[in-house]
Structures are given as structure tokens and as C-alpha cells.
């Protein structure tokens, strides 16, 4: 990158409107590009991928297929990594997948108390609350209170089973299919499945 005065002054003027962290990130990007460690176009591809290509719609397709195809549901239980890969969702932060099926007896909920591990290929990047100190600290000790903050009141007789993702295994919750959706297509069902339901801080309901 050229270092003529004009270019530098221009950067400075732009920078004066930026927050300290924005300035620091911008400075590090130009340094790492200048040193040849990163390709700026690769940064754009990475951002675009997680903005537009990989997100919770992927997971919703997995859930809808599990609801409509008993063989696929069985495959998910036995080898979730392979079953999910058959839909084209593979790779980074989803190398070792496990599907957790909610039942009338058990509600599953996923957290990473030690960092923010999350199944990227099926859910995209985690929401802020998933990475937040309140969720990371409280999900394991008072999951029912956390669920209430998401508007979910869990019946006393149902076990809330919290999965702390401490290794490279990544968990996808398969919520219960709501009553009244008999005969629905996979696409229509997928439209009901929310990100929170696949983390376990939500349940799938029919629109009122």
C-alpha cells in the first residue's frame, strides 16, 4: 500500500468519525494487508459468506426434513454429521455434529460456558445474547429462569437438559413439531423453525 501523505491524511479524516475500536480494527487490517498476511478480497468473501450464505435457514431445513422423513431423523440420531452433510451443510465449527431431539419428557438447551462454541454451518454466527456473560454464566445453573426470559415456561415435569459445548462437538436442537401441521410441506415447516428453537431457548409454535 502506498504511503504518500495524501493517502494517509485521507485515512485520518475518515477515521476521525470512527470509534476507538473501529479505528484500531481499520489500522490492523491495513497493517496485515501491507505485511501480506491477509488478502483483503478474502476478508470480503468471509463476511459475505456469514452474512448471506450460512445462517439459521440451513438448520431449519435440517429440522423440517427430520420432521417429515423418519429415515432422515433416524440418520440424524445415529450420525448427525453425515446426515447434515447430505443437505450440503459442512465444515468450520460443524465438523462433529450431534442432534438433540426434544421430547415430551426432555427439553434440550445448548450453551458454551467457556467461550461461544456454536454450530456455524447450520445456524450461522451466534447472536449477541448467546455470547453474552449472562447467558454463558446462567444457562447451566438456572436454565428455567433463563427460558422464562425468552418467554418459555417449561412444565415442571419436563427435564431441562443443558449441553455445555466444551469440546469440538456441536449441538443442534431438533424441536418438537407443533400440532396442526399435519400434511405441511418441508418448506412450509422450515418457515416455522426459529434460531432460538434450534438452540433450545425457544419452542416452535404456529403463528397466532
Amino acid at each position: 500500500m502506498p504511503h504518500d501523505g495524501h493517502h494517509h491524511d485521507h485515512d485520518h479524516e475518515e477515521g476521525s468519525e470512527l470509534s476507538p475500536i473501529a479505528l484500531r480494527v481499520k489500522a490492523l487490517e491495513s497493517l496485515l494487508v501491507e505485511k501480506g498476511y491477509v488478502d483483503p478480497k478474502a476478508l470480503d468473501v468471509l463476511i459475505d459468506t456469514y452474512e448471506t450464505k450460512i445462517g439459521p435457514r440451513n438448520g431449519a431445513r435440517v429440522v423440517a426434513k427430520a420432521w417429515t422423513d423418519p429415515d432422515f431423523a433416524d440418520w440424524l440420531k445415529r450420525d448427525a454429521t453425515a446426515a447434515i452433510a447430505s443437505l450440503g451443510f459442512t465444515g468450520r465449527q460443524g465438523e462433529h455434529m450431534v442432534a438433540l431431539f426434544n421430547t415430551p419428557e426432555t427439553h434440550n438447551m445448548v450453551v458454551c460456558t467457556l467461550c461461544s462454541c456454536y454450530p456455524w454451518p447450520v445456524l450461522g454466527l451466534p447472536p449477541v445474547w448467546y455470547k453474552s456473560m449472562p447467558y454463558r454464566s446462567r444457562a447451566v445453573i438456572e436454565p428455567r429462569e433463563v427460558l422464562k426470559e425468552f418467554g418459555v415456561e417449561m412444565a415442571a415435569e419436563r427435564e431441562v437438559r443443558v449441553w455445555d459445548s466444551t469440546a469440538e462437538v456441536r449441538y443442534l436442537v431438533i424441536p418438537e413439531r407443533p400440532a396442526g401441521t399435519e400434511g405441511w410441506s418441508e418448506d412450509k415447516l422450515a418457515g416455522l423453525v426459529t434460531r432460538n428453537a434450534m438452540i433450545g431457548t425457544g419452542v416452535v409454535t404456529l403463528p397466532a
Partner: protein
Amino acid sequence: MNGPHDMGGFTGFGPVLHEDDEPVWHDDWEPRAFALVLAMGMTGSWNIDEARHARERLPAMRYWHSSYYEMRHDALILQLIELGLVTAVEEKQGRMAAPPKPVERVAKAEMIPAILAAGSVYERPGNQPQGFAIGDKVRIRTINPQGHTRLPRYARGKTGEIVAVHGTHVFPDSSASGQGEDPHWLYTVRFTGAELWGKDTKDAVCIDLWEPYLEAQS
């Protein structure tokens, strides 16, 4: 290490604030910070355990005050400076003052889709016998290592039951400290809420734990 990252069981951080229809980013610098962390990871200069350990080594008050992407950015700088890929002066000034060090790979734009789709598998062939089976009761060792570990404090000394066996995986405690991948058996252990928290509850917590963290419950 008993660092600020080991959050399970803390109280005092308030309610879980969530927003409906949350956007992927909340500020323009966040995607750039995120992409820099990923792209530098692709140079092969560190593994995932070393990257996690860098975040855990940030000063505790800074860790708790930072947003997620600020924390990732700060940990990236810590690693870059420790490895000599960037000098402290360069980081401050945002321009090159020392020649670059060779890296294993520079990920070009056209390489990114294949790199992301491949990911990094962490299961390895192992030569250790499998010590536990589904249904076994295990006690979690009480350890307080100075270095990286994926054994959360809230599980130490507790008793649980093996509910899944995942094969032999890279052992983070070794991998984060330059001692190689050292694969060990990885299990999911189920703990009752009563065991972990002394509460009258039917709820449970499942944690993925490597064999060196476990001992047979006699």
C-alpha cells in the same frame, strides 16, 4: 487456568438481553474484525486451542467489559505480537516497520469457500485404551492448571454418568501449550442439577470431557 472465561454458575451479570430479528453485525467494524481473526487463523500460525487460550489470558476486567468482537480483536493482537508477526509499534501505528515473517499459507479469496466447507476435523487415531463406557459413573478430577483446560470449574470434583463416547480427539490442554495433539478419548458426561448445584431439581447438564479429566467412581 481459572480465568475470566470460565463463566458457568456465576451470578450477577443480569438478565439475558435478546433482540428480535437480530442483525448479523451491530457496527461496521465488527465484520472486518471477525474476518481478520478468521483470515489470520488460516495462515496456520496457531491452532484453535492456542487461539482460545489467548482470549482467556486477557486481563479479567477487560474480558468481562469487552464485546465479543472486541475481545477477539484484542486476543488476535496478543497472538500476533507474541509470535512476532507484528510488533507493538506496528500495531500502534497501523503500518509496517519490520519485514513480514513467513506464514504457512495466505488464504486468497478464491480459496475461502473450500477452506470453510472443509473445516478442521479434531478426531484423531489414538493409541489409548477406552477407559469408560456408556453408563459408567465417573468422578471429575479436581485440577487447577496454570494453562488452558476445557474442564469447567463447576464440574470439578463432581460425579456424573457417561452418556456418549465420541472417539479420540485432540486434547486441548496439550494442544494449547505446544505439546502436540495428544489425542484422548472424549465423552459426554451427564450431571444432575442436584450434584452440581445442590438444588432440588430434575434438570441436568451434559459436558464433553476428555479422559484425563475423569477417574472411576469407586
